């Protein structure tokens, strides 16, 4: 064992009389998986909440090969992961009855749990007891009643029958006569992903905005089953195309933890460079798009140009404009030479300088500032309650950053400066992005300067059947968490990934309350959550 076991959470739970069993087939040891009894599920969540841990994810899995030996029957397990700024991640799991799976809801402790529980109910048919919101989430109305895509025995090969008895989704409504509804989407006028927004408005003021997602459900979790790690990572990179690097990295890291492989340092440095480049490119694009939503097209065009320059260099050096398939389990697939690295560094510096010049233009322009300042405020307490991640959380003063908390390689050797916002409005979310661009550019320079000279990948060898791994990577949107379990022949048995959007979408719903209707796009863009990453 390379990693020291993390017993902090187990001890805290023990103080409360919750008995935990440490699972030895889960890696890494510093992010342990503890089995608890189902009766104590809610109690454990309450305890985590009391300890100021944030909810990372909630998911379910069919029993793996090890578990079947223990229970001698096919069962289900529910998992939840928490993180504490000083004590890293800890996973809890509990067995469920396969025939009649039931799980107490923890949504009263963690708001963000609600949608994840609905996802579990849709995919596995788990009945969530005491759920504040019992509506389906990913399961749309036309799905057949008995379709449970992640249960064994579900036929994923043939097209699903379309249920004729569709019914309607039960949106939040108002009985007041002055309130009207505005349905927007899932087909939009611009080139964006599909999602439906239902507004309740009085005049031009939004009372409530409700999201209805799931239109880009592609069955990623199911499609991952039965792939080996090499094929799996290609799919993982496509969970959300704009964070291809971060999603591939989290898959690779979880698989490497499970297989107990440590990729060479050079590989993790290159991964870091790729991830920071992805962060810069996306922040640049988003800042431009936010300005464009306020009809300030000049910034948009300049930012587009910078983003395009980055994409072209990516194509040239790494073979893909959006850096797809650059990370493989065990290392990276592309090893840039010294000349290419010098160009990469030069371009990063040049772009960061140009962004700074555009930033002064943006900051000194009253017309655009007037739009962004004070719009869509999320207070710090709300940000904590939801557990907002990435720039959305940082703008409100809640700054979990895995590069510091988890400090995985290469960030264990680097100093990451995380911007600390306070106002939680659109202006602060833009400010955080500008700050992150500057910091990422500095990190890229430092990584290129101290890049170790060695091989950039190890040979991948799959772990024992039944072994699982968990990883958390700071993508550009925020923390991406993934849990992977391998089965026979090194094939993936279950892959769960939680994109930061799953949590940050809740922040948007909160931010646009009491915001004028035409300011919604500005706010939406400042969060820029992924539809694909949420819908899986």
């Amino acid at each position: 064992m390379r990693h020291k076991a993390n017993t902090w959470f187990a001890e805290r739970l023990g103080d409360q009389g919750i008995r935990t069993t440490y699972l030895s087939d889960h890696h890494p040891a510093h992010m342990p998986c503890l089995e608890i009894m189902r009766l104590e599920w809610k109690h454990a969540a309450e305890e985590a909440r009391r300890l100021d841990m944030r909810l990372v994810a909630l998911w379910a899995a069919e029993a793996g090969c090890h578990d079947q030996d223990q229970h001698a029957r096919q069962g289900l397990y529910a998992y939840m992961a928490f993180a504490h700024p000083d004590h890293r991640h800890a996973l809890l799991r509990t067995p469920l009855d396969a025939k009649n799976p039931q799980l107490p809801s923890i949504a009263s402790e963690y708001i963000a749990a609600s949608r994840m529980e609905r996802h579990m109910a849709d995919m596995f048919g788990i009945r969530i007891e005491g759920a504040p919101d019992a509506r389906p989430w990913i399961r749309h109305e036309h799905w057949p009643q008995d379709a449970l895509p992640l249960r064994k025995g579900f036929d994923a090969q043939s097209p699903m029958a379309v249920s004729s008895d569709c019914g309607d989704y039960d949106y939040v409504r108002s009985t007041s006569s002055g309130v009207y509804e505005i349905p927007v989407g899932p087909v939009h006028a611009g080139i964006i992903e599909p999602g439906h927004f239902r507004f309740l408005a009085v005049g031009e003021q939004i009372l409530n905005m409700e999201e209805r997602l799931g239109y880009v459900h592609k069955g990623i979790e199911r499609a991952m089953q039965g792939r080996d790690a090499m094929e799996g990572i290609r799919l993982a990179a496509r969970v959300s195309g704009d964070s291809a690097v971060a999603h591939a990295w989290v898959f690779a890291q979880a698989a490497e933890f499970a297989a107990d492989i440590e990729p060479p340092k050079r590989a993790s440095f290159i991964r870091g460079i790729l991830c920071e480049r992805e962060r810069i490119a996306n922040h640049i694009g988003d800042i431009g798009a936010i300005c464009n939503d306020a009809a300030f097209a000049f910034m948009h065009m300049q930012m587009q140009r910078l983003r395009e320059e980055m994409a072209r260099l990516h194509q040239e050096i790494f073979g893909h404009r959006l850096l797809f398939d650059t990370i493989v389990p065990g290392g990276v697939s592309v090893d840039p030479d010294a000349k290419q690295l010098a160009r990469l560094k030069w371009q990063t510096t040049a772009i960061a300088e140009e962004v700074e010049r555009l930033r002064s233009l943006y900051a000194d322009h009253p017309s655009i500032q007037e739009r962004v300042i004070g719009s869509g405020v999320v207070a710090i307490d709300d940000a904590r309650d939801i557990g907002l991640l990435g720039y959305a959380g940082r703008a409100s003063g809640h700054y979990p950053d895995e590069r510091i908390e988890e400090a995985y390689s290469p960030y264990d050797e680097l100093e990451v400066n995380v911007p600390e916002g306070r106002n939680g409005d659109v202006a602060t979310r833009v400010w955080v992005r500008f700050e992150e661009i500057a910091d990422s550019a500095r990190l890229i320079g430092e990584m290129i300067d101290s890049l170790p000279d060695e091989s950039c990948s190890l040979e991948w060898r799959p772990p024992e059947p039944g072994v699982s791994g968990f990883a958390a990577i700071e993508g550009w949107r925020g923390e991406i968490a993934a849990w992977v379990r391998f089965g026979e022949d090194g094939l993936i048995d279950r892959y769960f990934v939680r994109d930061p959007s799953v949590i940050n979408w809740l922040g948007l719903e909160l931010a646009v309350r009491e915001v004028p209707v035409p300011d919604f796009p500005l706010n939406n863009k400042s969060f820029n959550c992924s539809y694909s990453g949420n819908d899986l």
Partner: protein
Amino acid sequence: MSGTSLFLQIAQAVVLVLFAPIAAGVVSTAKARLQNRRGAGVLQPWRNLIKLFGKQVVLAENASWIFRFAPYVVFTATIMAASCVPPLLVHTPLSLTADVIALVALLALARFFLALAGMDIGTAFGGMGASREMTFSALAEPAMLMSVFVLSIGAQSTNLTTMISHTLNTPIVLQPSLAFALVAMLMVAVAENGRIPVDNPTTHLELTMIHEAMILEYSGRHLALMEWAAMIKLTLFATLIIDLFLPWGISIDASLAGVAMGLVAWLLKLIGFLLGLSLVETYLAKLRLFEVPEFLSTAFVIAFLGLLTHYMLEIGT
């Protein structure tokens, strides 16, 4: 009225209508250049219109006759308004009957049908756009009339031909009231044509639209007429401002040479106006929706100040 003069009077309205898409192209090309882009060229709006005229019309199932009727009303009313405003020759086919109040009324008629059409299909966006448009026009119209009245008092008429002739016949003196009226008129023109900072004609964001939201359901030739009408309206406002505040160069007699002179002068002034508009549109972001009424009230107050200034400083002398 001789045949040539009648022909020239009609021809100038046709010139305005045909040049309107090019004027829109000038703005978008100038904006593209200001953003360091190449742009699609000044003829792009014409290409779009021709493409749309060749396309099939897709109608919503619950579209009533109003929805089908509205593009023709809007387009005709806008053309009628355009033929009140002389670009080249002071006299127009409607110069005897149509004055500025009639012009405002024709534009209001177009807007009325536009708003009806927006609400006809029953989508949320159309209704939203219609409600915004009517709110803002209720503020824009008085401001526009008020600023025209500043000039009307001097000319003792609301007839455009009379007003232009009056300006041409009086010696050039600096009149502070005109400066107020001009500023107010420019602000109204921006709002009436749905330009930045009031509305963004190029946006794809349904929730922020005003004018575009009302025509969101249109397609084919209906859409072409609606868009053409919007382009004509822009050129119309530009020409109106030129006529009222900078009429020099416009032809008084219906001679060919005079009209050719007028054409050159009009084109130069119009393009100057359009370039100014592109600069403003590049420089400014959109206002918050709730600030648009303030913007238009400011235009009204400025126009009113112009009126007061006229009484205080200019009448007695």
